[in-house]
């Protein structure tokens, strides 16, 4: 039993029951989804190879209804592949993910260039079903496959000067979005060390038990479920441990609008649009029922406040947004 669960007042017995319940539900959902997607020809890049590793269930998972795989793999923000929501899946094949290596550097004792295999090998792969809240006021429920970032960080032994972790996305010259300077490339993100070490923060290499599709940030991406989606940086090629707070892409682009922390906060509106509510994209694409989907109230820290609020104790979250 984890410490945060004690804090949240969750008993182990509740978890077990819930897990069983979810597994049954999940099976039903999966078979229903297979029935639906069998009728729709998905683009090649939306059909991933099943993961070879066994996938463990995680107690961090929500029991909410999953967004469909089609929704999660065809409606993306990945500006290196284009700014339209359909561009990432359209140009997914342009992203070259083999071979892949990640440079780990800065304030740590085991810096180096790690191949993807080096990074993944020692870690047991879990399935974690997280809510994902985009700053554009829509949300999804996604079954990620991966492991806690903390487990990788411990392996490379950051030193006492490491206060922050910075991440960079790959820059490949023939990606359609790279040719235009919508953002300053490479895409950059960062976390405070305690945020990076939080057990909810994960590195994902798959979704729905399959290898990560390119449009979702193959082969390795970050997932930080209590922050707006753009913090969960895709297609990572560099992880750096730093003493100072690193620059981050959306903050560089519009500092009044996007802060370093970017925690989901319905009380702190984006200066131009409200963050109080969100539209859940559950994803029966093609069905007209999506036209009548009502919005729901956005939860503080995207509903993960019990787990993460203590990271920000005493901080003015309007100022440090």
């Amino acid at each position, binding site marked *: 039993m984890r410490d945060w669960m004690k804090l949240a007042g969750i008993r182990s017995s509740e978890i077990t029951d819930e897990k069983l319940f979810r597994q049954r539900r999940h099976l039903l959902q999966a078979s229903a989804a297979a029935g639906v997607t069998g009728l*729709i020809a998905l683009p090649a890049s939306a059909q991933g190879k099943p993961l070879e590793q066994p996938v463990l269930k995680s107690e961090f998972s929500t029991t909410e209804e999953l967004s469909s795989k*089609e929704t999660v793999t065809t409606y993306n923000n990945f500006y290196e592949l284009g700014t339209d*929501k359909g561009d990432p899946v359209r140009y997914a094949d342009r992203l070259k993910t083999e071979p892949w290596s990640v440079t780990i550097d800065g304030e740590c004792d085991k810096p180096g260039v790690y191949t993807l295999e080096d990074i993944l090998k020692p870690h047991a792969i879990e399935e974690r079903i997280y809510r994902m809240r985009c700053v*554009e006021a829509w949300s999804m429920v996604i079954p990620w496959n991966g492991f806690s970032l903390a487990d990788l960080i411990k392996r490379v032994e950051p030193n006492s000067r490491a206060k922050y972790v910075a991440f960079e996305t790959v820059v490949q010259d023939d990606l359609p979005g790279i040719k235009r300077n919508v*953002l300053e490339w490479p895409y950059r993100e960062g976390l405070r060390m305690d945020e990076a070490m939080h057990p909810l923060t994960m590195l994902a290499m798959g979704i729905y038990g399959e290898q990560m599709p390119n449009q979702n940030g193959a082969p390795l991406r970050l997932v930080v479920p209590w922050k707006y989606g753009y913090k969960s940086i895709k297609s990572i090629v560099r992880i750096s441990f730093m003493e100072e707070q690193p620059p981050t892409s959306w903050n560089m682009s519009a500092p009044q609008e996007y802060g370093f922390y970017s925690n989901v906060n319905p009380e702190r509106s984006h200066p*131009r649009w409200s963050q109080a509510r969100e*539209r859940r*994209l559950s994803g029966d694409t093609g069905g007209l029922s999506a*036209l009548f989907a009502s919005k729901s109230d956005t939860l503080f820290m995207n509903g993960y406040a019990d787990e993460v609020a203590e990271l920000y104790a005493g901080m003015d979250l309007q100022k440090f947004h």
Partner: protein
Amino acid sequence: MPAAVADRLPALGWQSVVKPSVFIACAVPFLLLLQALFSGALGPNPIDELTDRTGTLAIRMLLISLALTPLRGVLKKTWPLRLRRMLGLFAFFYAFVHVSIYLVLDQQLALGAIWEDLLERPYIMAGTVAFLILIPLAMTSTRGMVRRLGKRWLALHRGVYLAAAAVVVHYVLLAKGDLVEPFVYLGVLMVLLGYRFVRLLR
């Protein structure tokens, strides 16, 4: 179509060929949108997609309708003016669909949320101003109203300049990341209004 051809056309050809063709060209995007909606091509977030596309169509129609007067000056032909009303009404039609989607599908007629949006979001304010100006313009677009209002009709319909400015501001204020399209519209609007301003000074 080339101006020379249009001006040589007999009146019958204008009424039976040119105007219906322009009408169809303006209506086709709407039919394509319906087709996309029913075939599922609008993706998992059709409300946002419909809002975006109808908004863009309204802006484009409005800018095209504003381009007809300068076009007359440049071509020294009068036929562009005869398309103004239809294009203006199409701009209103797309704006009406856009606003209806926002009110009914996006906000689900939650008056409190709509009111808050209006007061707190400058882009909603700008869009509302534009739409409220377009309503009386559409209502007074008939020949009968033109005759009845006389000089006041012209004064009233100059409001379209303000509506166009408000609608471009609306788009610039809501864009995220990629600002090319809203700034293209801003540039086009400045050219179209600049043309009129220069003529006024002469």
